[in-house]
């Protein structure tokens, strides 16, 4: 007795074969989602209480990073500037601008401005700005062209493999110390060659030390 129609032969083969691909697709989808900006927030501009433009302050006016982020060379954190830093200038210029009302309010009420954190590492990751700056890692390497960002977004995906990439291949990213705060830095020659030279000059630790877990996790 024939139970199945002739077409079931094709259907059954296709579905058996297709199930494998479907599963593979689901796994791929999951992985892609995990690497996508949806998860990593990479490149997602954040709305801030004050529409502070790095493009204007850095790109147009040429302020040095360290004018505001004063502790970047000394401490693990590159601090978010205090209201006082803003008021240094904005008590004089644009001191009536409605855009800057939150700043003036903060100054009046002594309450902090409520910024949204853009670069948010998990709490079990210990990143230290000062050592990276001291070893010739440019701001731009991790933060991108800040001077072209009206609103700051996260430049890299901040996933562990991204961190490891640099810790394994320091020569591809190092720049001379005096170029650390430069935006749009172009190596004067072959980056790999310069990088190798800087590596020995700055006494960059070998890869097996830089990729030790305790370098970042403790």
């Amino acid at each position: 007795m024939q139970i199945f129609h002739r077409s079931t032969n094709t259907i059954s083969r296709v579905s058996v074969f297709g199930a494998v691909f479907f599963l593979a697709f689901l796994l791929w989808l999951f992985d892609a989602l995990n690497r996508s900006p949806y998860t990593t927030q990479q490149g997602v501009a954040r709305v801030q209480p004050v529409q502070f433009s790095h493009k204007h302050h850095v790109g147009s006016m040429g302020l040095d990073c360290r004018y505001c982020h004063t502790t970047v060379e000394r401490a693990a954190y590159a601090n978010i500037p205090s209201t006082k830093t803003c008021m240094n200038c904005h008590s004089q210029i644009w001191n009536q601008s409605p855009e800057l009302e939150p700043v003036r309010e903060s100054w009046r009420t002594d309450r902090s401005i409520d910024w949204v954190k853009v670069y948010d590492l998990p709490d079990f990751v210990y990143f230290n700005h000062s050592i990276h700056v001291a070893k010739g890692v440019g701001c731009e390497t991790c933060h991108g062209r800040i001077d072209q960002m009206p609103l700051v977004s996260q430049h890299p995906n901040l996933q562990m493999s991204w961190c490891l990439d640099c810790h394994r291949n320091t020569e591809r990213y190092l720049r001379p110390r005096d170029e650390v705060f430069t935006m749009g830095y172009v190596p004067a020659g072959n980056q790999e060659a310069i990088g190798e030279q800087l590596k020995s000059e700055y006494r960059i630790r070998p890869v097996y030390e830089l990729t030790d877990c305790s370098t970042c996790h403790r």
Partner: protein
Amino acid sequence: MSGGKLYGLMAEFENPNDLVAAAREAHEAGYVKLDAYTPYPIEALTEALDIHDRKLPALVLFGGILGGLCGYALCYWTSVVAYPLNIGGKPFHSAPAFIVPTFETTILFAAFAAVLGMLGLNGLPMPYHPVFNTPRFALASRDRFFLCIEARDPKFDHDETWAFLTKLGPRVVMDVEE
């Protein structure tokens, strides 16, 4: 089920001996597109129908070798190349430890090769097949033995083949429609 194209002719036998004898005669008579259907494997049929298929063992061997290579490569690449880590002072290339996963992947790939190879070479899954069009064929999974000569056999001729099959002493000979 009627009115279809003819798939072949089927003879039903009551015991394995008759089938084996019939199969041998059919084969010797020069039929090539023929098949026997039995409720359990009968080794003599293989020889009677002269079935030679050595592909499956080769596939399994290939699967095993591939599995072994993949397994060892995975261990080696992850532990030595991708992220070498000092684990308990053991060398990055801890060959003795890698043997276990390698062994398991060898078996796994070989087993998949055996099962998928068997199904693939047999053309399974194939829920629809003309032989099922014969109502009596349901007994092939119970207690009857069938010999089918397909219409596409170059030597096939409905009446002649019918006569040939009848001569072999079956219980009954039937048309099988596509």
